[in-house]
């Protein structure tokens, strides 16, 4: 058959099944859209980190990185430049900062560069700008940042950096046409000397990017290691992207898993819709055979059908996904923004498009061919269409499915208890077990119904039970949609809530250790990682009403591929690590040890990676490398890449700094926290630039960050329910629509319209109740699986619970929406003209 013939034939046949193809189209499109938008939002985050380094320093190979926030000495650059092997050495000062404009605040990286950046950048700041800006003493703002804070060329802005609020001016706005992706980066650029001045770090830089002369790469690497002398790190230029990938992995994994579940719902929907036309297709095949078509031609016709459907649906899905990713799922860095320069620009990779498209077409092909191959639509006789005489329907009710589903459930138990890392396997096994159990459960309920049907006078129960039994596989598919959607959303949202509760508990335990907190300002500093001068502590100690001031230190610090949070509370704290966060080792002993000299507590995953346990020694590669002993293994304190705890004095020695990152102020007895905050603010003076918060205030600003980063999970759960409600309503609607003629026949025999409607309502109620109930139960179980995984694999602090409120809400909303839509469609279907019964 030629292509033009295929197309002609396709269009002719399409006329007869427009509605069903449309439903399938919608199902596939929704699945593709979800896959696409979730992928885009995660590649955008990592992409923006990559683009930033690539754009600014892409032509260099290494970076020499300071280990602490105080940076390294600028003179090192001339030492490197002196080598003939080095083509370029570019000093960069990079510090977390917040920039405040008229209409908002953004967390950014302050990047100080000098004109030498032109030697390693790819289309970065044109060389001239640096000189001009240096003279102007102004900032360069990417257009995304400028837009977010409402700053235009020449406007005054405030920069919170190094614990000080600095007035500055927006000198240049980096537009998208001139600077490309850089225009979306969360940075503020400034001439190096000006940036050093703003940060109060004259003569210091954070890192030096180094490019080797052709063929001299090895010599340069050796040189760098000599210069670093064990006090600086030599890293490849793409190191930040790698560290970011590590930090983002748990979030990516969980979102990915949930997106896959939602896409599955969409594809099941498509499958269900195509099941409706499977009978017609089989008749067509039989007719073509009789007319002498060869098998090859028949296969080509069918595959053509499927591919056309798949391509159109995927294209639609990509468009929808693009819309979703711009509106509902914009890339939000959340808490990762605390430690990485993550932009809000969207990065779409061709792999994302290819994967989404491929899944869409594959789903269409499977949904078209599987019902034919498995013979599940029953006899091709139109009057018997939809009978569950098919082999799959029979197979699904055999004893083996029971055995198989029990085996699958056993797998989930094993995953839950012994192998929490295999959450994906566990979830898939749970879904499969549920899908295998559904037909049995449904047919058990229907046979109870069949036994009951003669007890109730009138035709309603008889008609409902009869139709449901006859619909066979199709009613199973509808319950399966409800089941999967509820399983997914209850598990996702339940585990999400547990996670948030766990994070909040951690925040509370780490925060409620004093009366008033003093930290550097800005949302970027939610974990108190920005250092500021210690003199503020001196001032506070002398003021009335203050009983004690504890100096807390800390910051981010790279260990291997992990950007770890270092927390160094004052040695005088009651507990250096909250007891509940200690996973291995005795909490009381851990505190005693940590108060003394030379002990650290490491988070679990980090300790595993480093191969150390309680009592072992651990080399802390700080600016002053120090051998420490492990006092305890702890949770990651809510920072997924990992955490290290040591006392503030040890930190000062290892990082060679006296700076604090937070002050813990204990008030005299009888002074309320609010009054305490006011008096601390007064004591610090108006120009200090530091933020003073009571415990609840500090908890709130920290909670904001963690909740923002995880809000996507709720969005996915809600979206999944929405998609499922539509899918079910459409499937039930299509099922009802297909039997208009039979409805008309029953009317002709004298059954009133109202009673037909009641019968259809009963059917919808049964299907929804079965699907929603089993899905909810499985979802509650699934939440425990996800909780275990999040706890053990990602190290998220989870407080497990039974997600009953979540389950009830999800159950209620899905059942209500789907039932309402089904009620409306069946009401319309029940109005079918009686005459239809007499037509063929």
């Amino acid at each position: 058959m030629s292509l033009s013939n295929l197309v002609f034939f396709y269009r002719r046949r399409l006329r007869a099944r427009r509605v069903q193809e449309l439903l399938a189209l919608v199902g596939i499109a929704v699945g593709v859209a979800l896959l696409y938008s979730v992928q885009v939002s995660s590649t955008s985050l990592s992409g923006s980190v990559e683009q930033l380094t690539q754009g600014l320093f892409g032509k260099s190979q290494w970076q020499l990185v300071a280990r602490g926030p105080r940076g390294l000495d600028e003179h090192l650059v001339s030492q490197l430049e002196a080598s003939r092997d080095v083509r370029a050495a570019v000093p960069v000062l990079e510090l977390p900062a917040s920039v405040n404009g008229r209409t908002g605040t953004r967390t950014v990286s302050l990047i100080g560069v000098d004109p030498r950046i032109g030697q390693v950048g790819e289309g970065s700041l044109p060389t001239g700008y640096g000189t001009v800006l240096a003279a102007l003493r102004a900032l360069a703002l990417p257009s995304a940042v400028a837009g977010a804070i409402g700053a235009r060329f020449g406007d005054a802005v405030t920069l919170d950096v190094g614990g000080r609020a600095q007035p500055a001016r927006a000198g240049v706005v980096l537009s998208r046409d001139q600077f490309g992706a850089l225009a979306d980066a969360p940075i503020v650029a400034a001439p190096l000397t000006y940036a050093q001045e703003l940060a109060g770090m004259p003569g210091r830089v954070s890192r030096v990017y180094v490019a080797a002369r052709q063929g001299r790469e090895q010599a340069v690497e050796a040189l760098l290691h000599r210069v670093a002398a064990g006090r600086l790190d030599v890293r490849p230029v793409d190191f930040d992207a790698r560290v970011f990938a590590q930090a983002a992995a748990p979030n990516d994994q969980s979102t990915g898993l949930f997106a896959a579940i939602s896409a599955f719902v969409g594809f099941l929907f498509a499958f269900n819709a195509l099941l409706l036309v499977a009978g017609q297709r089989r008749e067509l095949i039989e007719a073509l055979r009789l007319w002498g078509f060869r098998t090859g031609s028949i296969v080509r016709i069918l595959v053509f059908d499927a591919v056309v459907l798949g391509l159109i649906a995927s294209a639609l899905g990509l468009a929808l996904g693009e819309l979703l990713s711009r509106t509902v799922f914009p890339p939000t860095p959340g808490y990762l923004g605390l430690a990485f320069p993550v932009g809000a620009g969207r990065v779409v990779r061709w792999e994302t498009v290819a994967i989404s498209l491929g899944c869409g077409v594959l789903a269409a092909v499977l949904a078209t061919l599987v019902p034919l191959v498995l013979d599940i639509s029953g006899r091709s006789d139109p009057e018997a269409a939809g009978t569950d005489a098919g082999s799959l329907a029979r197979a699904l009710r055999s004893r083996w499915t029971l055995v198989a589903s029990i085996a699958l459930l056993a797998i989930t138990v094993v995953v839950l208890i012994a192998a929490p890392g295999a959450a994906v396997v566990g979830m898939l096994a749970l879904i499969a077990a549920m899908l295998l159990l559904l037909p049995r459960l449904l047919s058990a309920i229907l046979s109870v119904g069949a036994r009951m049907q003669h007890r109730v006078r009138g035709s309603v129960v008889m008609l409902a039970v009869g139709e449901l039994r006859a619909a066979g596989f199709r009613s199973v598919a509808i319950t399966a949609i409800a089941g999967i959607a509820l399983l997914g959303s209850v598990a996702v949202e339940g585990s999400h809530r547990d996670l948030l509760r766990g994070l909040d508990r951690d925040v509370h335990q780490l925060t409620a250790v004093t009366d008033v907190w003093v930290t550097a300002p800005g949302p970027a500093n939610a974990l108190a990682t920005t250092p500021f001068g210690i003199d503020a502590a001196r001032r506070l100690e002398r003021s009335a009403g203050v009983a004690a001031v504890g100096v807390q230190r800390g910051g981010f610090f790279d260990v291997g591929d992990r950007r770890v949070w270092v927390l160094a509370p004052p040695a005088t704290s009651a507990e250096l690590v909250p007891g509940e966060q200690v996973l291995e080792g005795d909490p009381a002993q851990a505190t005693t040890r940590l108060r003394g000299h030379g002990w650290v507590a490491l988070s679990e995953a980090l300790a595993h990676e480093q191969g150390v346990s309680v009592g072992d020694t651990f080399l802390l590669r700080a600016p002053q490398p120090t051998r420490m002993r492990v006092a305890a293994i702890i949770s990651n304190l809510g920072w997924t890449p990992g955490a290290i705890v040591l006392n503030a004095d040890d930190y000062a020695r290892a990082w060679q700094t006296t700076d604090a990152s937070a002050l813990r102020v204990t008030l005299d007895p009888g002074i309320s926290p609010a009054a305490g905050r006011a008096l601390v603010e007064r004591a610090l003076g108006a120009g200090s630039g530091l933020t003073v918060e009571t415990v609840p205030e500090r908890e709130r600003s920290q909670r904001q960050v963690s909740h923002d980063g995880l809000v996507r999970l709720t969005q996915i759960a809600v979206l999944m329910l929405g998609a499922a409600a539509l899918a079910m309503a459409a499937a039930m609607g299509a099922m009802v629509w297909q039997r208009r003629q039979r409805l008309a026949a029953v009317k002709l025999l004298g059954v009133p319209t109202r009673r037909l409607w009641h019968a259809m309502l009963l059917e919808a109620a049964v299907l929804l109740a079965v699907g929603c109930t089993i899905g909810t139960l499985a979802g509650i179980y699934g939440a425990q699986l996800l909780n275990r995984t999040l706890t053990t694999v990602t190290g998220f602090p989870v407080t497990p619970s039974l997600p009953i409120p979540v389950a009830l809400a999800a159950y209620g909303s899905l059942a209500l929406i789907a039932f309402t839509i089904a009620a409306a469609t069946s009401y319309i279907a029940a109005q079918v003209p009686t005459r239809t019964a007499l037509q063929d």
Partner: protein
Amino acid sequence: MLEVRELVKEYRPVAGESVRAVDEVSLSVGAGELVALYGPSGSGKTTLLELIAGVQRPDQGAVLVDGQEVAALDQRGLDRYRLFTLGIVPQSLRLVDGPTALDLAALRLTEQGLSWKAAHQRAMPLLERLGLRARADHQAGELSKGERQRVAIAMALSTQPRLVLADEPTGNLDTRRGQDVLSLLAEYSAEQGASLLLVTHDPQATHYAHRTLALHDGRLDASKAAPADPVPGPAS
């Protein structure tokens, strides 16, 4: 009992000329009377039945059943008319699949308010009469075309309707089964005093009918009141 007065029904197809499917037809069927209606394909037989069943509204004329005009009934009235007065055997009927043949035969009775048990008891003898005893527990999907048609007859007669409309009830049956069905219908109308209008191509039907009518292009044709070649059969 059934009285049709100057009934007209015109179809206006999407394209092409309009068709007068029923053209000034008047007829009456008395209680206990069986009237056979012949006519070539497309002559308007089904349309006529639809007008009588109240499935379609006539353009002109009236259908009176027991003196009540069908077109004047509201939805409730129509439902009651179809459930209590009328028994219709359509040309082909899409049955609900799932319930058994016996369930289907009893369906209208229980809709009238009988318990299923009582309804089954009343429907069973009817199925036996139609030779479906062995098929009573089978679902519609498991029945042959002819068997399904006989189930449809059982559904129509189960409520002992006073007016029966049958559209080619023997269309899918062999001669012997056809005879059985026809004699059942004849007996039924005689016993119950029901009016029976039988649309058919089956020449045997003349032998059971009190009167025979012929429809041509929507008009009753008085001259051609019987099929050309009647086959001998049991006298009525």
